[in-house]
């Protein structure tokens, strides 16, 4: 004889247990996400700051190889040399510095100090012959020192920053000559071998162009394929075979598509290497099955009663499809497309194979120019030894994540806004 009371209690308990399992799974997933985001943000946020050191620069005509008695024209200033101006000004920071120590001081600044000194005099020609304070970009190592990311406690021979450099730096720092500002160059510069100058402009534009090419190639092809397969193709062995193969295509590892891009697009058609054009076409091979599957699913979700209604009104099959079925399926198709593109955006392997891994220090102006892409940029920087690139990797991941989140948000909005409810 079963005790009904106990039986019921048991059921309540197992129900509660089940809910608890579900909640713990969600908590666990959120925890992983939080750890991941915390790690990325805590290492990455400093990359959005850049360290500057202000030092007196001696615009002595002698060091610029110009005539001291005559005010130089802008063109003269443009043409003259600034290396010695820099070196002499560095030497002035420590009267007793020897040759090696001056070189050490020089290495405290980004190698573009010449251009920064030149830029200042070009915008302030009146400073010719004077000693004025100029803001120079700090080297990536000192940038890290200033941000507190540098292990100063290591013995000197294991550090890239010498004790002498630290001494000079600490002195300047105590005088309030060191500051950090928002790092605009991270967004406007292309990649660079120097961490303090490296930016994501090239890879961001590369990713953007790749995605646009990918969209332009894959969306129309996928939509037409999906419409034909779902609405017109007879249901027979051949269409079953095609369907299975589209699903297979979706499961092919992306690196294989990279090889295809390399072997066909570059080798046979001779398209330009390392360009978003080739990258986009290669990625579109990947997104194609994703979009076809999403489009077919949302075409299938349109109630047959709508098709019947249109057909019974005397609409042809094409009219039924174009006037009713496709517009109704579009929200699902579009959000599937955006999710496919978001996948493509994060793809690295195929782009490495078609040469988008090359070091590109120019910003692409069109899909035909060589470019990197955000995930490949992460890969390139993650391989670099300099400490300054560590935070850059995290910052680049942040930019990529924000890009992805925005795309998914758009997908969600598209679905929400255009989804029609029927009965």
């Amino acid at each position, binding site marked *: 004889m079963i005790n009904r009371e106990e039986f019921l209690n048991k059921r309540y308990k197992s129900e509660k247990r089940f809910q608890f399992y579900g909640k713990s799974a969600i908590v666990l997933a959120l925890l992983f996400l939080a750890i991941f985001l915390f790690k990325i943000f805590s290492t990455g946020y400093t990359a959005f700051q850049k360290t500057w050191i202000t030092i007196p620069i001696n615009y002595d005509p002698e060091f610029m190889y110009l005539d001291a008695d005559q005010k130089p024209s802008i063109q003269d200033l443009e043409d003259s040399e600034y290396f010695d101006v820099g070196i002499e000004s560095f030497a002035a920071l420590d009267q007793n510095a020897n040759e090696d120590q001056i070189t050490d001081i020089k290495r405290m600044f980004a190698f573009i100090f010449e251009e920064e000194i030149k830029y200042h005099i070009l915008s302030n020609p009146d400073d010719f012959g004077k000693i004025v304070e100029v803001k120079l970009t700090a080297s990536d190592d000192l940038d890290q020192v200033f941000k507190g990311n540098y292990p100063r406690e290591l013995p000197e021979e294991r550090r890239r920053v010498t004790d002498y450099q630290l001494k000079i730096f600490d002195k300047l720092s105590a005088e309030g000559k060191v500051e950090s500002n928002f790092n605009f160059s991270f967004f406007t510069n292309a990649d660079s071998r120097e961490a303090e100058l490296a930016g994501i402009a090239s890879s961001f534009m590369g990713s953007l162009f790749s995605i646009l090419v990918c969209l332009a190639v894959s969306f129309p092809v996928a939509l037409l394929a999906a419409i034909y397969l779902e609405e017109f193709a007879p249901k027979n062995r051949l269409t079953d075979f095609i369907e299975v193969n589209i699903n297979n295509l979706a499961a092919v590892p992306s690196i294989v598509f990279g090889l295809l891009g390399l072997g066909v697009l570059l080798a046979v058609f001779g398209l330009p290497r390392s360009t978003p054009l080739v990258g986009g076409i290669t990625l579109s091979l990947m997104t194609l099955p994703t979009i076809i599957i999403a489009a077919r699913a949302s075409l299938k979700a349109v109630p047959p009663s709508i098709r019947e209604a249109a057909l019974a*009104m005397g609409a*042809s099959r094409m009219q039924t499809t174009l*006037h009713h079925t496709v517009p109704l399926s579009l929200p699902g198709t579009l959000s599937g497309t955006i999710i496919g593109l978001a996948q493509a955006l994060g793809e690295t392997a195929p782009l490495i194979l078609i040469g988008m891994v090359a070091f590109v220090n120019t910003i692409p102006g069109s899909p035909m120019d060589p470019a990197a892409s955000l995930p490949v940029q992460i890969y390139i920087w993650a391989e670099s030894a300099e400490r300054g690139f560590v935070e850059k990797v995290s910052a680049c991941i942040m930019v990529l994540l924000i890009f992805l989140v925005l795309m998914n948000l758009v997908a969600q909005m598209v679905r929400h806004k255009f989804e029609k409810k029927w009965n």
Partner: protein
Amino acid sequence: MNKIEAKNVNVFYGEKQALFDINMDIQEKQVTALIGPSGCGKSTFLRCLNRMNDVIDICKVEGEIKINDYNINQKATDVVRLREKIGMVFQKPNPFPKTLYENISYGPEIHGMAQSKDELDQIVEDSLKKAALWNEVKDRLNEPGTGLSGGQQQRLCIARAISVKPEVILMDEPCSALDPIATAQIEELIDELKKEHTIVIVTHSMSQAARVSQQTGFFHLGKLIEVGSTDMIFKNPNQQQTQDYITGRFG
């Protein structure tokens, strides 16, 4: 006068035969009801009349179906023209998820029936009036058709069907999803429509068949057991099976 003549119609779904040698005449400007238990083939027969079975890949229709003495069950028939002449109303109201206006104007537009916007407006108004819906919706023609109540939606579907001035209207259990008041409105409407259109209606409700139709056909297991005037079928059927079904002894 016979509007539709079906001769030796056999329908197969793949291997399975759904209709067996149906011979049936349908009178012009009358209401013909098709009754019978579920799965007896009455809807299948109805869908033969406007070739809606073409949509189903495995469905094969044999035999002759003459409308205005022209056999529509042949390859050469243009189904677009056919469905312009033979409208259909479905079991579940299925307005397009568009505005009320667009629901009605769609048919006339794709068949090029209106020369101008005014003419199209007129067709929409006439169709809604004939479907006894005009007064309820005339102020909100730009609202979605799916926002109406079930009964209104079904009348909208009827208005949509009559917008292209079909000669025949096929109705597949048009009231099965509606409440009694909406049902009564549709039945009144059917009475009105038969002045201009030939109507064939599939129904599960025998009282409805008795109320609205002049002719009734009784289907059972894919066979047309008996066809005749509604009076005769309900009061004095020739077949024992018909008698049993009418009196509720099976079904």
